[in-house]
């Protein structure tokens, strides 16, 4: 039984295919370019006037874990104002900024996404994060586990533990938490906040006796030496502070040439110039990315409207609470591992700061030359809900649309941005890179993000139309593992998806010191802290798919 997709324009950057008309087949959930002798075509889709891409991948979206449930609780009005009725195959739900799990899965699929990655899994909260993601249907999931503020790793770094011992701990935590990458949020800063420190710069010694630079250096090396495909995923120091672009560039340097991913870099690209002591440093940041090949970044674009920010960065979330809208905020210290801060925000185009934040994000997109190293995110829901991606794509692809939008933002912000002069318009090929090929590559998902022979048949088909936003908002067809799950932007079949993980090799004797640490200080025993593959499948509700690590 084969499905034939015929007559579509293929955009498959992993194979340098840029809009070529070509037939592809789906057999047993995989892509093939020639029909095997023993197969018959049982279903044909005429894709003339259609664009064909691999399923999109969101490499940074907060869709699971305790902080999201706190946000859902705090956003009752927003939840009720956005009800999502169910039907015979879909569960009902609520929410725009922080939708319920089922709703999030359906909306992602309806936009042609087939995999999403939760970037802030606290080790002790990993079960809940995975449970929420297991209840997020339609898409594959994965998580980045938080280190760099936990007492165990800080103490290792402070006491001068060997790099190989740190590597063993990093590998152990990836196994224990069933994650695919390592995330650092405000290195050492969340821990320092527990000691009432309100700011921590890259070369400042924290109460743990280490600097953020030490932490980034050791952990980026650990990730690299373990062969984990995804570079250390870093939320840099000083989020949101005017002038923070300097610490962002210092954070890049802390990796000492090893791969490092800077996340929601828009929030870390601020200067302190001008009448309001707030300015764009997008040019400096883009230049730093362009000239530093080991660096990748996702943007974390903001969009105007109501949302809620959820972050592990208690220090900077507390700093920002006065800007909360509505006026409420939550800050939580968590389990000698990290923390979380949840603050609702309403970004307004008539606010100077918000308007400039919007422009800074776009300036970064347009000034980073290599689309393989910059990723399309809104740091959902922190900059905006993920449902705004089609609008963002239009802003990137259509200069006149962008300049019209720019012309109505706060007048002073317009003066402080050179966005209007930027002529670049992203092509469909570049959008396919930044939303498909590049995320798959940087996550080590070798059979995702492309349409080559043997790839997992996650395929999104858009009907060509003038309005690119409408096109990306409602694909004509979406296939997930070869199943047709979405037609004309609506879910027609529900599927579950898997959890992508890595399990690098390590010296198991690290468990000896960890067992003592858990027995002496923690309130969970080590055996119960670890999540097994079997527990993932049987109790949590999502099978794991293990991707290889190539140790250097």
């Amino acid at each position, binding site marked *: 039984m084969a499905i034939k997709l015929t007559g579509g324009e293929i955009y498959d950057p992993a194979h340098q295919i840029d809009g070529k008309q070509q037939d592809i087949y789906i057999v047993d959930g995989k892509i093939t370019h020639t029909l095997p002798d023993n197969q018959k075509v049982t279903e044909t889709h005429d894709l003339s006037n259609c664009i064909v891409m691999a399923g999109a991948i969101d490499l940074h979206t907060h869709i699971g874990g305790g902080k999201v449930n706190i946000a859902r609780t705090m956003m009752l009005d927003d939840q009720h104002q956005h009800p999502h009725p169910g039907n015979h195959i879909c569960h009902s739900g609520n929410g725009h900024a922080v939708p319920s799990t089922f709703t999030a899965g359906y909306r992602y699929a309806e936009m042609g996404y087939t995999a999403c990655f939760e970037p802030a899994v606290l080790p002790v909260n990993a079960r809940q994060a995975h449970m929420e993601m297991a209840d997020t249907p339609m898409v594959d999931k994965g998580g980045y586990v938080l280190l760099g503020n936990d007492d165990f790793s800080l103490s290792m770094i402070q006491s001068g533990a060997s790099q190989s011992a740190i590597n063993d701990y990093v590998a152990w935590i990836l196994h224990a938490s069933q994650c695919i990458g390592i995330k650092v949020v405000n290195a050492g800063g969340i821990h320092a906040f527990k000691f009432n420190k309100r700011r921590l710069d890259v070369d400042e010694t924290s109460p743990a006796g280490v600097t953020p630079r030490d932490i980034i250096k050791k952990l980026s090396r650990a990730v690299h030496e373990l062969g984990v495909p995804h570079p250390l995923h870093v939320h840099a120091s000083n989020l949101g502070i005017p002038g923070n672009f300097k610490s962002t560039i210092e954070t890049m340097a802390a990796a000492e040439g090893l791969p490092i991913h800077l996340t929601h870099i828009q929030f870390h690209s601020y200067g302190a110039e001008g009448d309001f002591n707030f300015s764009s440093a997008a040019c400096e940041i883009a230049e730093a990315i362009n000239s530093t090949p080991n660096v990748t970044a996702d943007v974390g674009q903001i969009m105007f409207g109501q949302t809620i920010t959820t972050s592990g960065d208690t220090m900077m979330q507390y700093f920002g609470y006065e800007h909360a809208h509505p006026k409420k905020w939550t800050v939580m210290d968590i389990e000698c591992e990290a923390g979380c801060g949840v603050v609702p925000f309403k970004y307004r185009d008539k606010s100077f700061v918000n308007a400039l934040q919007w422009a800074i994000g776009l300036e970064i997109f347009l000034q980073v030359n290599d689309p393989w190293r910059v990723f399309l995110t809104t740091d959902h829901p922190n900059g905006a809900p993920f449902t705004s991606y089609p609008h963002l794509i239009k802003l990137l692809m259509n200069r006149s649309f962008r300049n019209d939008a720019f012309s109505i933002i706060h007048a002073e912000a317009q003066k402080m941005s050179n966005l209007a002069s930027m002529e670049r318009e992203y092509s469909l090929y570049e959008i396919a890179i930044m939303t498909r090929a590049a995320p798959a590559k940087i996550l080590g998902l070798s059979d995702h993000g492309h349409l080559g022979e043997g790839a997992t048949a996650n395929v999104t088909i858009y009907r060509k139309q003038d309005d690119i936003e409408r096109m990306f908002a409602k694909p004509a067809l979406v296939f997930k593992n070869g199943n047709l799950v979405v037609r004309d932007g609506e879910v027609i079949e529900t599927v579950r998806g898997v959890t992508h993980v890595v399990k690098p090799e390590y010296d198991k004797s690290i468990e000896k010191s960890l067992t003592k640490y858990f027995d*002496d200080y923690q309130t969970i025993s080590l055996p119960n802290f670890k999540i097994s593959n079997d527990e993932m499948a049987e109790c949590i509700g999502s099978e794991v798919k293990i991707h290889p690590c190539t140790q250097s």
Partner: protein
Amino acid sequence: MQFEHVTCPHCGILCDDLSVEVSESTVTPLNVLHSQCTKAFQQAGFDNANLPTPQIDGKESTLQMAIEKAVSILKNSSQPLISGLIADVQACREAVALTEKVRGVIDHANGPASRPNIAVMQRHGKVKTTLAEARNRADNIIIFGSEILDRFPRLMDRVLEPNQSLGSENTVNKKITIIESQAQPEKKFKQNNINYLRLDAPNLESIIQILELIVHTDITPDEDDNVTKKLLSIHQQILDSQYSVLIWSTGLLNIASAEQTIQSISQIMKSLMKQVRCVGLPLGGSKGEITANQVVTWQTGVPLPVGFMGGTPVHDPLLYNGVDMLKNNEADALVWLSTYSSDDIPPNTDIAKIVIGHPGMKVSKNTSVFIPVGIPGIDTRGLACRTDSVATLPLQKIRNNDLPVASDVLNKMIEML
């Protein structure tokens, strides 16, 4: 057979350091420090050869017939209430799906007592900490109400009196202050380091109001106002400490004013945070309230209680209060899910009752359907959320028997509806 690292789901602390011996007819924790913790395990002792069977109207039936009967009751019900929810994550997931399918209302047995914390979170947000953070970081503990130590028997050894900590000596030997009204009977404590403040105030709520006033204003007490003087010293103690933790349990507050009281505690912490670290540790969840609320919140986008009558989930703490709905005859069928303890029986009501319950449960004669199911953490694997809403603990299967799994029973009902 002996099992190690067994999680006890019978209070919100979810201690997971138990060794449990399982024999043919008994389940015995071997290292329990408090007698209160053994009760639920003792209830699980029954002979595998004599497992309770499902019942329809008090008469034995097969599982299939019991499920069919339950389905027929729900099909003929116009406003069913799904409650209890004293259960693990898996069963709660299915309970939500069942409620959606029958367009009913879902609420926890202790819904009204869980609401004040959620309401304050919705309106103001919170400043919180978790068990291990309090254990290692706190040097100053303020407990509102001595009964907390009875309700959470291992709070002391698990959190407040660690043998060692990641912090300074002051975090090992924490300052512990218990504050309550003289209206409460005087308590004796085993520990002699507890600063026990029984204040001459009508109730705990008024004490907390005075503390809030002290934090927010510049107050000078009258000469004979010992309550304010002592609370001023508590305020100073917080300002002088590195990391203070305020502990309360909604179930032990006056429920009528609990929301206001918790809001005051929250505002106290948020004001103090401008200068020092001061955080809250609300304790609860001993009947699975945290688990049920977490599952409902992520699956529907809103917390308990939730009604599905309009086709989408709606949170309304007044309209969908399960306790009041039963009292006011606003439900015409009750599904009661209660799997941890045989004591947690459904409330007395005349409407049709479907009980998916602990195998040792004695149900009333007017129970339409009773389906005894495996106990999570003993007969079935499960997952449970801790009082701090952060840690989720695995519940082991430590005994083999033929009792059905609650989530499977619910799932079969959903399929047949």
